[in-house]
């Protein structure tokens, strides 16, 4: 298994608060990995660190063998921010073409990306006039237009209609089959089952990093929501043991 992303002992602080407490994980090439966790658990911060736009306090992040944020990675990585980052005063096509042209790509590539996210009918509409779900798909088209080898998607399916959501997941798997590595965050557990691998994150710590079936086996349940709960409880019990042993709550947390 070839590694696309490797995170080691990653620590991120924001102000005086530590938001990621020494995270380590690997993401294999050509797969769809889900980053699942509740809102505020540190998903976006971890994704930003992998893209290389987050100031980190410690640890290392390697993407395709290069340190995260390296100049050479800018052609090879696509990033979808959580809030749609497209120009509301341009049409879907103008937005997608602009981002495509930054990679030296032409009209056909932009139109293909627009069709891939199901926006062909709205291609000539101003982004500012689109619905929330359409706007985030326009943003997704701009993240995919450069045909990146690694795709980091922060909650791409929020607010999408169930049929479209299923189509987007099919599209992600088709891309993975062609060798693209996708890391997709979500706070909705029912999307976990659509991934090849799962990273479960809570309060800035990883509580699982495994295939979907291994997570189910480890937790002893097929229901991933329930599995997440059980893993949290197991972790907390381990923490309490740690507390009892060290007698110093803060050091152990």
């Amino acid at each position, binding site marked *: 298994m070839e590694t696309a992303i490797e995170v080691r002992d990653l620590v991120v602080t924001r102000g005086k608060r530590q938001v990621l407490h020494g995270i380590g994980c690997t993401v294999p090439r050509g797969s769809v990995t889900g980053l699942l966790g509740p809102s505020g658990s540190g998903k976006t911060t971890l994704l930003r660190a992998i893209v290389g736009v987050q100031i980190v306090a410690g640890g290392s992040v390697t993407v395709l063998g290069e340190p995260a*944020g390296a100049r050479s990675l800018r052609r090879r990585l696509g990033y979808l921010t959580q809030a749609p*980052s497209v120009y509301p*005063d341009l049409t879907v096509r103008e937005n997608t073409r602009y981002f495509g042209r*930054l990679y030296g790509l032409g009209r056909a590539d932009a139109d293909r990306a627009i069709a891939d996210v199901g926006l062909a009918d709205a291609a000539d509409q101003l982004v500012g006039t689109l619905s929330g779900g359409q706007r985030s798909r326009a943003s997704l088209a701009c993240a995919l237009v450069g045909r990146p080898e690694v795709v980091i998607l922060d909650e791409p399916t929020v607010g999408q209609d169930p049929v479209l959501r299923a189509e987007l997941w099919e599209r992600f798997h088709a891309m993975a089959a062609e060798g693209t590595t996708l890391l997709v965050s979500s706070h909705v557990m029912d999307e976990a089952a659509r991934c090849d691998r799962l990273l479960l994150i809570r309060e800035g710590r990883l509580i699982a990093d495994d295939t979907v079936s291994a997570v189910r086996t480890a937790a002893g349940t097929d229901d991933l929501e329930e599995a997440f709960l059980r893993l949290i409880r197991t972790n907390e019990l381990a923490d309490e043991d740690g507390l009892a042993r060290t007698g110093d709550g803060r050091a152990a947390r």
Partner: protein
Amino acid sequence: MSLRILAVTTGRILRQLRHDRRTVAMLLVVPVVLLTLLYYMFGDQPAPPGQPGVFDRIALVMLGVFPFVIMFLVTSIAMLRERTSGTLERLLTTPLGKLDLLFGYGLAFGLAAAVQAGVAAGAAYWLFDLSTAGNAGLVVLIAVVNAVLGVALGLFCSAFAQTEFQAVQFMPVVVIPQILLCGLFVARDQMAGWLQAISNALPLSYAVEALQQVGAHAEPTGTMWRDVAVVSGAVVVALVLAAATLRRRTG
């Protein structure tokens, strides 16, 4: 920096402007309306013998001031939007270089300013009989350099604003002192020494002096070219400072 990326970024910014027809209309019409006001305020005031009329003196300076003020405002809001909407963060993860973006704004709004200055100068010379000893083309050139100065300062100042409310308040801070001290209200050599020193440090003072040189001399003077060079230098300094405020990594 890449010429291709600079060109597509300039094109993108102009395309955004083109979709905003109201802004385009205001960019073109507002300076002409203001010049009309000036014409009816000062047009029939007698001039002291041997000196330019009051309207000629003020309108000439205003042809340089309007694009500076307007482009400063437009750019600081446009750049603030890039920062707050997440498009800047996304752009900085692509092959785009910081200077591609900053020069893209300078070029796009510089082009818009050239059209604006052309229309305003056309109105001043043909409708209101503005007379200058020097060439009207030089007036437009100085106006465009001034507009680019406004763009560069706007790009820089947008880094210090978190909201659009804050961004517009940089206008009284950055723009109005330059207008007060540029020599329009009080001649610079009649100011108190310390005011003159401040005036000498502000780029708009040089732009206004350059315009006054065009007003008074038939041929472009050495002072005028030096002043244009000073303003252009200020543009470069402001763009370098603006580049320093663009951070690929944030907290």
